[in-house]
């Protein structure tokens, strides 16, 4: 019996190993692209982070020391962290609440879903135009404020700029996250809720004890996607305010963009390596937390 079981086990392992190789062949085309266009160039970035720009001479940790003593880098890094810390929880909670409410909407559900997705369908150029119309000093928002007797606010050249950017990011990405949450919600069997209700659980209890635990596997994916999407907000900020926006919305991408204009490839490479390391660490932490769950 033991012999048969052992033989079966070996066969299963061989079978699994074979299937893994088959899977590898399937991912090979995209993996080749990732290696050619991301990993290999990134290795070059790592190399450049230890060298001088034009001569290519080895510079040790000089570039890393330079960026950590550079106030623009610290400002941009601080803003990026602040933006992420403020936006990601807001977006995750807001989209989850919207998804739960939408799931219960039988009649208007599909219409509201489309409405939530509308901002994603609007081209960035149009969004930027909208921003300019809304938030310019002589713009629509100040027009409305002045109607109520309030003083006009220079939205994009004051601390309000950060709030505008956060609002824009959430407005644009809420629909996407709602859809992801809805996918997660649809995977929770209705029978669990019914059983809980029979046992006397209320809506809140059901949400806390059934919905949240069952959505945890989705949380990792949604959090990582939202985190990565948060970097795209630079497009809007750049198109509205150019290379030098208000300091509260001066992000890492602004800095990299400007460093490239100045041919500061050495600093840019060091900054990119640090940035990538931080992102990788965060993603791994999230993955670990998810695996524990």
């Amino acid at each position, binding site marked *: 019996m033991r012999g048969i079981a052992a033989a079966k086990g070996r066969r299963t392992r061989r*079978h699994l190993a074979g*299937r893994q*190789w*088959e899977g590898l*062949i*399937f991912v*090979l*085309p995209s993996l*080749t692209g990732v290696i050619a266009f991301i990993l290999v160039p990134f290795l070059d970035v790592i190399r450049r982070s230890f060298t*001088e*720009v*034009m*001569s290519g001479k080895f510079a040790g940790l000089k570039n890393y020391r330079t960026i950590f003593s*550079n*106030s*623009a880098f610290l*400002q941009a890094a601080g803003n990026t962290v602040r933006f992420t810390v403020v936006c990601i929880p807001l977006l995750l909670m807001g989209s989850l609440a919207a998804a739960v409410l939408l799931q219960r909407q039988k009649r208007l559900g599909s219409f509201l879903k489309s409405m939530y997705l509308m901002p994603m369908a609007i081209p960035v150029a149009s969004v930027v135009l909208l921003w300019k119309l809304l938030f310019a*000093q*002589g713009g629509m928002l100040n027009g409305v404020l002045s109607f109520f007797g309030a003083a006009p606010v*220079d939205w994009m*050249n004051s601390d309000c700029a950060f709030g505008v950017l956060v609002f824009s990011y959430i407005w644009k990405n809420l629909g996407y996250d709602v859809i992801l949450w809805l996918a997660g919600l649809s995977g929770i069997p209705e029978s669990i809720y019914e059983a809980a209700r029979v046992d006397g659980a209320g809506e809140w209890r059901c949400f806390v004890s059934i919905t949240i635990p069952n959505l945890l596997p989705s949380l990792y994916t949604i959090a990582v996607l939202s985190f990565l999407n948060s970097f795209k907000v630079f497009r809007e900020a750049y198109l509205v305010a*150019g*290379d*030098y926006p*208000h*300091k509260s919305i*001066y992000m890492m991408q602004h*800095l990299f*963009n*400007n*460093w*490239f*204009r*100045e*041919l*500061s*490839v050495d600093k840019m490479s060091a900054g990119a390596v640090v940035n990538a390391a931080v992102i990788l660490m965060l993603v791994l932490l999230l993955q670990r937390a998810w695996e524990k769950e």
Partner: protein
Amino acid sequence: MRRNRKGRLAAVLAAAVLAAGIGGCGNTDNTQGTQAQSISAEGGNAMGRYMESEIALPADTMRICDIQKLADGTLRIFAGGYRSMIWDSKDDGATWEQKTIVGEALDLDKDITIYDARISPDGSVFAFWYEGGSDNEIGTLCFGKILPDGTAKRVTPKLPETESSYGTMVGQIGYIETGKILMRIIGMDQFYLLDDESGELLDTLNEEGAYCDYFQTGGGKIFIFESKGVTILDYASGGQSEADDAVKETLEADSENLSLTSTSSFPVVMCSGNDDGILYFADDEGLYRYSAGGSVVEQIADGKLNSLAKPSVSLCGMSVSDDGSILMSVTDEESPKLLRFVYDESVPSVPDTEVKVYTLEDNVAVQQAISMFQTQNPKYYVSLETGMSGEDPVTASDALRTLNTEIMAGNGPDVLILDGMPMESYMEKGVLKDISSIYNEILQSGGLQENVAGIYQRDGAVYGIPSRFKVPVLIGDAETIGQIEDLESLGSTAEQLRAQDGDVESILHVMDAYWLQNIFYGAYSPLMLAKDGTVDSQMLTGYMTELKTLFDLNHYKEEEVEYRMMTNRSDSYDFSLYVSTQGLVEKTEKLQLMDLGSGEGLATVTSVCGLTPGVDYRLAPVGEKKVFIPSTIVGVSAKSSQTEGAEEFVKFMLSETAQSVNQESGFPVNKKALDTELFAEKLAKGELSEDERIIMTSGSTWMSEDGILHEFNFDTLVPGQEEVDRFKKLIDSLDTPSLTDAVMGELVAEQAGKCITGEITAEEAVSVVCQKMNLYLAE
């Protein structure tokens, strides 16, 4: 088992797709590689190019109206001006023989000037002029013909009556064949074809009434140019030609070909070839050959490889010799020149060595230098890339990023025109090559204006040399401007002047908000950075406040307000060089801050001072600093693959030859060229007559609201030796370059514009600029 087989099949298919993809890619690459090699092998050895040479003109030739190579090989020119003459050369311009003094041959009064003339293929000349004119009437239009043997006769053409109160005015004439002259009358759409001897009206062309800016003839066709396009008439049939789309498209491809910008030259010139139906034409992009009805226009010479692309060159006429060489009459810096293009089979069609020059913005001085350099150095092909063409919304930052990508990829330019570029960053990173050898060589051989040219020296190395510079000066009452020390006192003085005279239109000359900020930035930008490298917010507050004050002190007419409030413009003309002669002379303006960038500019300022008692000029009052604006800063890329060619070109740009041509790009740093610019030749003659002193005469007439006609005439005179010496001393005292970084300039300009026009307060403007500039400086 079935699932497993399916899996294997899928895996094999996936692998096959991947292999096919990779294999396919490799295959395509190989094919392209082979093709590229064969093209390179074929194109690399192409030989033959039209080479340019200059033919010396007879002495004192002021203008060439027409040239013609006659059947017997004689080269005939009609030299216009105060004394029009016909000259012949039997040896292709080596010597000239005076054939006819036109005025004498036609028995004209000495004060009559021949307006224009054309030479017929048989050598006869048809000319026109006006007699008995007055201020309000141009006079009677007269025509004459000088026959090949030199005898002359008057011709009375039968032209229709014109309704113009000035009388009949000829727009242009041109031979279409021997004996037949085509004429365009101003105010009439039709062309009149006349017998050049009897004046008989042979035909009326352009019955459709196509508007004409100018016309050219050649290859049996008449080409009518106007801003909307080109109309081609076949003068054999009299109707529009439908079969010449190729030449039409070529001519219309460059919008600059379509409209006249001068009364003595044309954007396009044409002539017939030696065979029937062959047309030769030229524009600033090159020489072309076209066979009537053909589908292709052949560019036989690239304008970039000869003088045709020189911004200072304008085309006047052309003719083709029996041997196929092409003669062209042009004006270069307002002097006539005769050029010959001869095909040389032994020269490569495209020079072997390419030197790439990069400039952020269009730069006429560089274009001029490239053209001159290539004419003198046929082995080099100098290509010019302009980062911001002005035709697309590319910003300075966008252009710099693209440039940096090229530099990092090893495909960057060899020569950099560093205006607007991050100079300090480039020097620090080793982007620029040390060109101290060139600097020292020119310094020792002829001399450079060292206090200007040497500003980019670091530890004995020279990374860039400003080839030109401008000097910001303040013009106004001598006593008043003498008391002004800085921007603050300029503002308070302006306020005092306004308090003393509430009626005067302008205290300080202001073109508009854009130019006000632009001119002041040139003079005051060095003060914007504190010693620690951060922004001096106190100074910046003063800058914004004073600009606003100066702008608001003027009384703008209601219809002018919108224009004056403009904060962004894309003028091709540099208004910082403009002298408000009328405002200063008539004292409707009390002060003007402007940039001096040419001898003519200095002459205008000294003429204003000479004409207006008490008015004088001084360097812009910037405290202890004596500020200048470096421009056309040349540098060589450390990664240049053509270092020798690049250095040759930079050396040429700083040479007396290249620097002596000034198209309002600034004073040259080459001392000999600077002397030439500051009238050394004229002043060396000693005492100049009144006529000799006049450089330019300008004037304007306008009617005031009360219906009175006003007139203002102004003569720009050569300054005296003392005035030139005084200005040279001012140049020698210059010690502070203005900031040339485009990013900083844009950051200040944006907010300054808003502040001047009252959109934001000075404090708000300063807050935004400080925040942004400090980020920029911290990067």
